[in-house]
């Protein structure tokens, strides 16, 4: 099988996959996340932005989904998040991104991964990185 496409998903995609009311979007997210042609990269920022909130809300299904995603589906982790600070800073300086947006995007860029988000292509990080993909109903 050819090399898999390294992929980093935005937090909203993980929520789409488990809690999206629109079933078409939910399925799009699930199919992208489950795509056997992709392998998944994660950072502690991504984990912290999703799993603790599900735990705080006592949402069993979301907890099960996220725990499985991070424990079994993710094959590569950012080893040291500090390496993201310089590229994220440059993204903020250039595109006025929000801090966490910049950290997520820098993760994908530094690892040459696809960045998949639920944000519309009018958002600035689509301009910042040519490998931004989006899942949207609009």
């Amino acid at each position, binding site marked *: 099988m050819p090399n898999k496409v390294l992929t980093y998903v935005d*937090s*909203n995609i993980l*929520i*789409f*996959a*488990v*809690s*999206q*009311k*629109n*079933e*078409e*979007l*939910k*399925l799009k997210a*699930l*199919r992208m*996340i*489950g*795509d*056997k*042609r992709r392998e998944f990269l994660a950072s502690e920022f991504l984990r912290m*932005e999703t799993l603790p*909130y599900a735990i705080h*809300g*006592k*949402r*069993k*299904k*979301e907890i*099960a*989904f996220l725990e*499985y*995603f991070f424990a*079994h*589906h993710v094959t590569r982790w950012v080893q040291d998040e500090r390496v993201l600070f310089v590229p994220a800073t440059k993204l903020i300086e250039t595109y006025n991104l*929000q*801090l*966490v*947006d910049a950290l997520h995007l820098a993760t994908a860029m530094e690892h040459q991964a696809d960045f998949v988000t*639920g*944000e519309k292509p009018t958002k600035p990080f689509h301009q910042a990185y040519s490998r931004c993909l989006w899942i*949207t*109903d*609009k």
Partner: protein
Amino acid sequence: MIAPAQTILTNFDLLPKELRYQVLIEIFRRHNITYEEVIAAAGVQDVPDLDGDLSPTGKELFRISMEMEDDPDSLMTTDEIHAEIARRRGAARP
């Protein structure tokens, strides 16, 4: 139980692949049954192409998302999801 579902699944191969997921979701939702029960009702080992594009761990994520009962009040619209992420990032969404 699932006579309509069984009819659909009997003709499953005729459905466009894109529709197969949606059909199954509808069956899951309407009949409150599991993927395995749907497959058993259809009398097949597996649904053609349904799992073909999914990795083993992707299938498990699919199963968790589709088979586990939704947490109360957990489902959100796209705008609500974006607003929730914005809240977590400390910014009110404009």
